[in-house]
């Protein structure tokens, strides 16, 4: 183990101050995730399926022992107009938010944003909106 790897293993705060440049295979969809192309220093979700893994209590601290899959459940618009993905841990229910990366799958992102407007069986989700009101 070289010195940098050692530091990563034993220094819990490592990722708060260092960019996360690891390449990995997505545990959910198998996509080979490389560090280049994200346009951000912290790649914290898969650009193909948009899932994340519950590793942090506070952003970047790597202190959670949950390690559950975090499902993308929606998107929201941050102050400067950029989109962020809302993740929810399927194991413990924790909600967190991750900035959209430059190479995130635009189809999946759009499908997430459109979810409240999908119509099924003549009913709109959140059925207290009668048909025609949306």
């Amino acid at each position, binding site marked *: 183990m070289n010195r940098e790897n050692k530091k990563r293993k034993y220094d819990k705060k490592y990722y708060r101050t260092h960019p996360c440049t690891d390449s990995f295979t997505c545990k959910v969809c198998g996509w080979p995730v490389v560090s280049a192309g994200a346009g951000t220093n912290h790649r914290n979700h898969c650009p193909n399926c948009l*899932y994340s893994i519950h590793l942090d209590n506070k952003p970047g601290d790597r202190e959670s022992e949950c390690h559950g899959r975090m499902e993308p459940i929606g998107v*929201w618009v941050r102050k400067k107009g950029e989109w962020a993905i809302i993740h929810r841990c399927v194991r413990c229910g924790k909600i967190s938010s991750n900035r959209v990366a430059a190479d995130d799958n635009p189809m999946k992102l759009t499908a997430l944003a459109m979810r*409240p407007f*999908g119509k099924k069986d003549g*009913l709109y989700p959140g*059925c207290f909106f009668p048909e025609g009101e949306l």
Partner: protein
Amino acid sequence: MKGKEKKKEIYQCLNCGWTSIIREEETPPDHCPNCLCSIHNEDEEGNECGGILEPVGIWVRSEKEWEIVQRCRFCGEMSTTPATEHDNRIKLLSIASKPISSPPFPIERIEEMTRLMGGNTDKGEI
């Protein structure tokens, strides 16, 4: 009122000032039905926060259930609260439609962009 006066409580929103009467058989709302904000009482470690949880997004939990995703203005923590039929519909809709009204990329080019990045253009379940 069947003779005697029933005990009433008043709910007042600390964000927008909305007030409603809570009848005896009702529990106080989890969030303000007008502005959809709540008060962030406690963070995960049990520390008092007191910040305002404001609605930032919608989670379509199932066909019949929407949850409002809230984020604390003070500490940034996020949580969800179930939407109800008493909630301000215009407000709910404006939160739900915010992302599509300010897309980070040209919507009409999505398929082309997805092909270019070699991704999966299947919109279905992941």
